[in-house]
């Protein structure tokens, strides 16, 4: 029977600390990324190797992309938005590899045998997307306060007129809704993609999943772009002085 679970399954437990399959995959992605980073770093040369050209194209291209949104302050924001993009796109794409959601083991839970996959895309777990959303929104507040000082709070609490006061309340709500929308947009897209792939693979396992895999590759890229670009846009909005 088709196995679909909204939550990430626990695959192990170390001293009461649950290790879910999505957390495991996140560590896998981290391992891959950090290996890539050190491979690049150890061979960094003014005359680049082919590998270095690829990495430079990635980092330099991303930098230029975000520079078009945040301008001169890109230097400040790039660690966050660049890592958001790279982490999300790697996590999304690694979830499309064969074996994700299919390799697993049976686990007895509540008297029933339940299939538990070892791998699950990190972004198909709300814990990951919420963590990213929280970091993103908190960083937006941090840079807002750092750049504008106390005047940053004026956009939330303005007693000049009832209209401004009301707008301020709306802004407070919107800051919280940013977390929710960031988290659920990413989770929804990736989880839906996984479910779609699982259903298609269940119904017709040969040929049919291929166009959907292509679609999911595109979705993974778009979601990474949307998440990081929105963060960049909010960052530049939060640090803009006029209101």
């Amino acid at each position: 029977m088709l196995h679909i679970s909204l939550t990430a399954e626990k695959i192990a437990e170390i001293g009461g600390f649950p290790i879910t399959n999505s957390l495991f995959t996140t560590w896998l992605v981290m391992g891959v990324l950090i290996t890539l980073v050190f491979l690049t770093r150890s061979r960094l040369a003014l005359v680049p190797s082919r590998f270095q050209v690829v990495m430079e194209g990635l980092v330099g291209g991303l930098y230029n992309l975000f520079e078009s949104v945040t301008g001169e302050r890109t230097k400040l924001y790039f660690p966050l938005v660049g890592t958001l993009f790279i982490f999300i796109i790697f996590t999304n794409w690694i979830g499309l590899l064969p074996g994700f959601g299919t390799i697993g083991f049976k686990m007895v839970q509540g008297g029933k045998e339940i299939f538990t996959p070892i791998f699950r895309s990190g972004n198909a777990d709300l814990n990951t997307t919420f963590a990213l959303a929280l970091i993103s929104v908190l960083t937006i507040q941090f840079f807002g306060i750092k750049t504008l000082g106390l005047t940053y709070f004026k956009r939330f609490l303005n007693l000049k007129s009832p209209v401004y006061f009301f707008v301020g309340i709306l802004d407070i709500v919107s800051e919280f809704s940013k977390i929710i929308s960031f988290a659920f947009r990413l989770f929804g897209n990736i989880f839906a993609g996984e479910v779609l792939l699982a259903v298609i693979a269940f119904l017709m396992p040969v040929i049919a999943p291929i166009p959907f895999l292509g679609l999911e590759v595109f979705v993974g890229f778009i979601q990474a772009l949307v998440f990081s670009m929105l963060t960049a846009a909010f960052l530049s909005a939060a640090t803009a002085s006029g209101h």
Partner: protein
Amino acid sequence: MEKLGIEPILLLTQVINFSILVIVLTKFLYKPILKMLDERKRKIEEGLALSREMATKKEELDRDREKVLDRAKNEGAKIIEEYKAQAKKMEAEIIASANEEAKRLKEKAKTDQEEEKKKMWSDLRKQLFILALEMSRKVVGEVLNDKAQRLILERKLKLLESEKRENVN
């Protein structure tokens, strides 16, 4: 929250995971690579500026060299021209002086010859005179006295001489 699978401890773990990733990527990927890109950009700009400079310098040098070559050619031609003219002048001079010398030698030869002739003539005349005197003395001496002898003799000699001159001339 429980239904969505959100667990604070897992959330926190993911926050930490992502923070580690941000730090590692920033420190070991973004900064070195962006620095490298900037440095390469600077190096390339420098190289391009240098090559531009070299190109203009080369052009300048080429122009200079051409100028020098032209000047050298012109000067060489001028020198050759000058020497040719000088050589022609010298040739003319040499020919003229040679001609003159030849003329002078010819003249000299002529005058020498004439003088010789004259001298010969005068010698001849003198000897003839002496001979005639002796002869006349021998012949006339017996007939005429000295004074008459001389007179006649002189007259005869004058006649002879004029005749001879006519003959010569």
